[in-house]
């Protein structure tokens, strides 16, 4: 399933001009407040009409102004989780959840009520009306309502912004399962780069109504020129690897990738599973020789490729480790103290712990 977007839309003074295509998996829309993310999602859902252009999802043309095609929202089979909930105030939580099921042919249904209720922790809320829910509870119901339409494409506009970390940690794996097991294509709007890098296959950076960059998530996130758009603090590299060994005693898994092998704690995956790991630039320290007697388990050899721009006392160092490019962020004082220059060989120190659950995601199993 692929998504091809080429649309224009003017809203007052604001002008959205977006053109990109995305393959299967999660397509993340990332950009500042007011960049045009929700507008784009509305166009895909069919709630707003592009001024001109074309929207194709999985081969089906949803909109094409030249050919006069404009499929009604109800026939697009797109599940849309709105940024602002939009629960039906006159229906109970249960009725809200089941609303879309009426309109889904039984043959098309692949989601049922019970697991969604469990996943989202809604069982005690089923008979309430939205007015008696907390902000996070409303958002959870909205997520469930969209899932229960058994959509062919899921649009999620900041679905987890109102939720606490614990809830996010429960919901994200489920989204991953939708993506992987059901091969459900997802368009995911988020401000949280961890979420984006964890879930996304394709990353679309939107700025001022235009697509600043679009491509595979690891490519985009390791581009030094885009670090400003992504936010320096969260910048890092996404790498895909395979579980090569599991150490049950220490709860550690060994993940092999182009740059060597990494030990990852608490990864409940069997040998052979493919995983995605994000390593933030700020979590990598550099050493001239392999450190000893430290609690850091992951030490990889590498060679400095380039130095980024200095940001006050900090600087990014791009290091080639095997086939993979990693970025480390260190102080300029340390850079000078160690005398690091392009071409130099050194060691990357990565605390195992930084492969936390939030930046771990199982990649598409096919």
């Amino acid at each position: 399933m692929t998504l091809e977007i080429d649309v224009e839309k003017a809203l007052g003074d604001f002008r959205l001009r977006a053109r990109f295509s995305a393959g299967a998996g999660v397509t993340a829309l990332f950009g500042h407040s007011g960049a045009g993310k929700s507008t784009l999602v509305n166009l895909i859902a069919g709630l707003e009409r592009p001024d001109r252009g074309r929207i194709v999802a999985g081969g089906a043309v949803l909109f094409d102004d030249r050919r006069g095609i404009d499929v009604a929202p109800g026939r697009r089979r797109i599940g849309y989780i709105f940024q602002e909930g939009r629960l039906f105030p006159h229906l109970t939580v249960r009725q809200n959840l089941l609303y879309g099921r009426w309109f889904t042919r039984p043959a098309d249904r692949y989601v049922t009520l019970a697991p969604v209720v469990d996943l989202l922790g809604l069982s005690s809320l089923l008979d309430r009306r939205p007015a008696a829910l907390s902000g996070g509870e409303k958002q959870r119901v909205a997520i469930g309502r969209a899932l229960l339409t058994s959509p062919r494409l899921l649009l999620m506009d900041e679905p987890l912004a109102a939720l606490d970390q614990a809830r996010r940690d429960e919901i994200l794996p489920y989204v991953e399962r939708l993506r992987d097991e059901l091969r459900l294509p997802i368009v995911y709007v988020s401000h949280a780069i961890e979420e984006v890098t964890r879930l996304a296959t394709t990353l679309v950076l939107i700025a001022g109504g235009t697509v600043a960059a679009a491509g595979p998530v690891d490519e985009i996130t390791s581009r030094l020129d885009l670090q400003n758009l992504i936010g320096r603090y969260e910048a890092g590299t996404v790498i895909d690897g395979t579980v090569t060994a599991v150490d049950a005693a220490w709860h550690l898994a060994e993940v092999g990738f182009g740059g060597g092998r990494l030990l990852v704690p608490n990864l409940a995956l069997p040998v052979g599973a493919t995983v995605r790991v994000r390593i933030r630039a700020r979590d990598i320290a550099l050493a001239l020789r392999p450190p000893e007697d430290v609690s850091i388990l992951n030490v990889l050899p590498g060679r400095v490729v380039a130095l980024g721009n200095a940001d006050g006392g900090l600087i990014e160092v791009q290091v080639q480790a095997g086939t993979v490019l990693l970025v480390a962020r260190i102080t300029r004082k340390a850079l000078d103290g160690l005398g690091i220059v392009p071409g130099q060989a050194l060691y990357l120190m990565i605390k195992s712990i930084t492969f936390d659950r939030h930046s771990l995601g199982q990649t598409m199993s096919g």
Partner: protein
Amino acid sequence: MFDYTPDEVTAILLSLRVALWGMAGSLPLALLTAWVLSRCRFPGKTLVDGVVYLPLILPPVVTGYLLLLLLGRHGLIGAWLDHRFGIVFAFRWTGAAVASAVMGFPLLVQAIRLSLDAVDRRLEDAARTLGANGAWVFVTVTLPLVLPGILTGCILAYAKSLGEFGATITFVSNIPGQTQTLPLAIYTFTQVPGGETGAMRLTLVSVALALGAMVASGPLSRLISRRVQGRDAGN
């Protein structure tokens, strides 16, 4: 004073029948009209709006006379209806219901329209993304949310029907058992010496019928507005 003659009892029952049928009969058209006025833009909309208000603008006697001209036995539409379907309104209780429906129509339409205008369109959008087509969106989202307007409109139309006199008497006359509704019976009393007590007695019935309907619809209305505003405590 509270001994009602059989004719009066008949008038009371007839009034109820006329009010309810008039209301029920005009509701679908009123819904459609309100929807069109609220949601569609087309040239000549003000004209349609004006036509809807017409029964309010015209003196009831004129409305009744126009009904007589249109739907009477020799009327443009009346003759055709009689000829084709054997439907006759003139001087029947059905005609009284028609008069009552016509007179209540603007009230019904405007109440519903007001509610329709207040419905959050984003909820309708949400329903559309969930797979509902236009008709289903209307039935499952719009309609429940405009129920307060429908209820208010219905009560207005019902109350109006209990008081409607000019159009009815002009259109279908004042035939006991056929077309003599309560307001007509009350009017008749006011036209003769010593009719005051009779008029008063029937007026009280009229007020009681209206209050009764309001009391009966009270819990329904509270339920509806609580649901629509979502103001319940959770169970």
